């Protein structure tokens, strides 16, 4: 019932489109969003990228977006409609738009497509994603230094490789400064449910976690941390305004540079199908301001950020032990990209059983 209704709502929302004035000679660039631009998280950052791109390229482009587009058949219809309206470039900004994007791209070979966080490419479809786990390693280190109880609480959304990778990276970061660091995980099975995220934060705090971090999209958990006097980290967007005392830093997704570069490539006629997996080195993952922490911790976080950016440090460098105690990789090795992309196991120290 709830599912059905959510779909009905989302379909209707998809119909409400934002269109600016049309002009024939401009390049029209379309964006498909999974949530509202006002979510202050994932979609907000994509929309910031769109606005910055529009600002930079000025008269040459015209952008339009459709928000709250559910993943699945409705996405295909919405993408197709954007393509029919004469757009030259379409960014589809959620994992579940992968197959719809590929399908529509086949029917519109002259339109360029860019799909975020997926793995299927075509001649006119590029993929792009960010190494968010690099930021999670940095906040893990900070947590390892700041936490008094040696336990952090992690509010997770769905057990997919990206989320598991984030959990592991966070814990590896924490264990690099405190080998006994423990992590409690609560799966809320939703990307966005402020009430449930807040409840999960309260439960984690009452179970001894004095640092809260999340892989969900609302700011509710951070506010609970502020109220209960524990620390927290922001997700996707700089969330400092929501918890001035509790927020240590945020992992910020920055799509601006990428959107400008790709749109410019279409304008120049140099666009090619590519696969981008950018991290701190490409400025696609950034750290927010480091607040509420002693100077030595701040210096450590800045140094770690710098060495990840330069490529000197890899969050998944060995030795790494899996949760059951077996050794995943030895000293001097780095987990390969294939393992990272399909990660479905925890590292040692996670106080949870991974839902399969």
């Amino acid at each position: 019932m709830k599912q059905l209704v959510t779909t009905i709502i989302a379909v209707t929302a998809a119909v409400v489109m934002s269109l600016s004035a049309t002009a024939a000679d401009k390049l029209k660039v379309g964006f498909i969003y999974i949530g509202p631009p006002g979510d202050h998280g994932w979609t907000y950052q994509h929309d910031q990228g769109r606005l910055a791109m529009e600002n930079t390229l000025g008269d040459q482009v015209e952008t339009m977006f459709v928000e709250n587009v559910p993943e699945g058949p409705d996405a295909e219809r919405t993408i197709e409609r954007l393509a029919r309206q004469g757009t030259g470039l379409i960014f589809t900004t959620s994992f579940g738009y992968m197959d719809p994007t590929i399908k529509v791209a086949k029917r519109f070979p002259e339109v360029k497509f860019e799909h975020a966080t997926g793995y299927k490419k075509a001649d006119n479809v590029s993929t792009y994603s960010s190494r968010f786990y690099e930021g999670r390693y940095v906040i893990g280190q900070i947590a390892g230094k700041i936490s008094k109880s040696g336990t952090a609480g992690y509010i997770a959304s769905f057990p997919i490789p990206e989320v598991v990778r984030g959990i592991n990276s966070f814990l590896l970061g924490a264990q690099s400064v405190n080998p006994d660091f423990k992590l409690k995980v609560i799966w809320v099975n939703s990307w966005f449910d402020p009430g449930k995220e807040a409840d999960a934060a309260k439960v984690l705090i009452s179970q001894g976690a004095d640092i809260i971090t999340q892989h969900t999209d609302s700011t509710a958990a951070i506010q609970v941390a502020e109220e209960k006097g524990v620390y927290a980290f922001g997700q996707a967007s700089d969330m400092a305004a929501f918890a001035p005392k509790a927020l240590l830093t945020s992992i910020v997704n920055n799509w601006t540079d990428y959107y400008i570069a790709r749109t410019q490539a279409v304008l120049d006629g140099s666009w090619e199908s590519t696969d981008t997996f950018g991290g701190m080195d490409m400025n696609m993952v950034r750290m927010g301001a480091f607040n509420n922490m002693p100077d030595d911790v701040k210096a450590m976080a800045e140094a770690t950020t710098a060495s990840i950016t330069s490529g000197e440090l890899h969050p998944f460098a060995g030795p790494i032990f899996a949760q059951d105690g077996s050794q995943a990789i030895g000293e001097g090795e780095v987990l390969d990209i294939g393992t990272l992309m399909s990660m479905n196991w925890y590292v040692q120290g996670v106080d949870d059983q991974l839902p399969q």
Partner: protein
Amino acid sequence: MTGLEAFVLTVITASTPFLLAAIGELVVERSGVLNLGVEGMMVMGAVCGFGAAHLTGSPWLGVLAAILAGAAMALLFGFLTQILITNQVATGLSITLLGLGLSGLIGSNLVGLPGEKMQPLNVFGLNEMPILGTLVFGQDPLVYISILLTLGVAYFLYRTRAGLIVRAVGQSHQSAHSLGYKVIAVRLSCIVFGGCCAGLAGAYLSLSYTPQWIENMTAGRGWIALALVVFSTWMPGRLAIGAYLFGTVWILGLYAQAWGIGIPSQFLSSLPYLATIVALILISTNRRLSVVNTPASLGQGFVPDR
């Protein structure tokens, strides 16, 4: 604060929005009207409550605005279904859709603003008392209001003449009409009451539970409230049990994960629904009581035959 106390506090805050929204809908359905717009009225309450509290700095004015917003949405529903006799299911769904869209529009400038959190009561300074102090005397005012509302609705439906008329209208609008009761007026008042309660539930979300405005922040709670009304067989006492049971299992599921027991989280997420349905089916085994309490003309439009 002991672990148990923290647990009970979390349960109370999680259960209250369900109870607030559901108790209003219970009265609406008792009068024979099915309003599927609870989610929409709730989310409108949440945005208007947050906005008014932010502008005026007073959470209580926020609560008032939320109630009015819920009532306005309900009045629209009432006008369409009672005066124009539109289909109640379709109209209710469109009220939900309208509410979700309109609240996003109204709230577009409110996203990311700090909220005015409603302060908990401190009745006679008694919340300093050990163990029961905070639990009994230190809650948010809206928690007490939700309990008083439930008691009030139970008293109204079973102990007052007006409550009897509401039940009669829900049971058979033709008979009630023949006896000279104003079916449409009774139903409209119930619909507006339901809207006020849904608005209040929204205010609880945006002023107390998670004091901020985020689009679609009700996240389906209105639908759960609707389901609770049906499973409680339209009885206020059972509704309160259902709402608190749902909240308890919901929070227990989160605890079970934090303890690392190893039950799949997807199962834990669905457990509140299962547990509530099973429990309410068990207490509804008295067939006669259930039949007596089911509004027979639920969802049917009424056209007076002059």
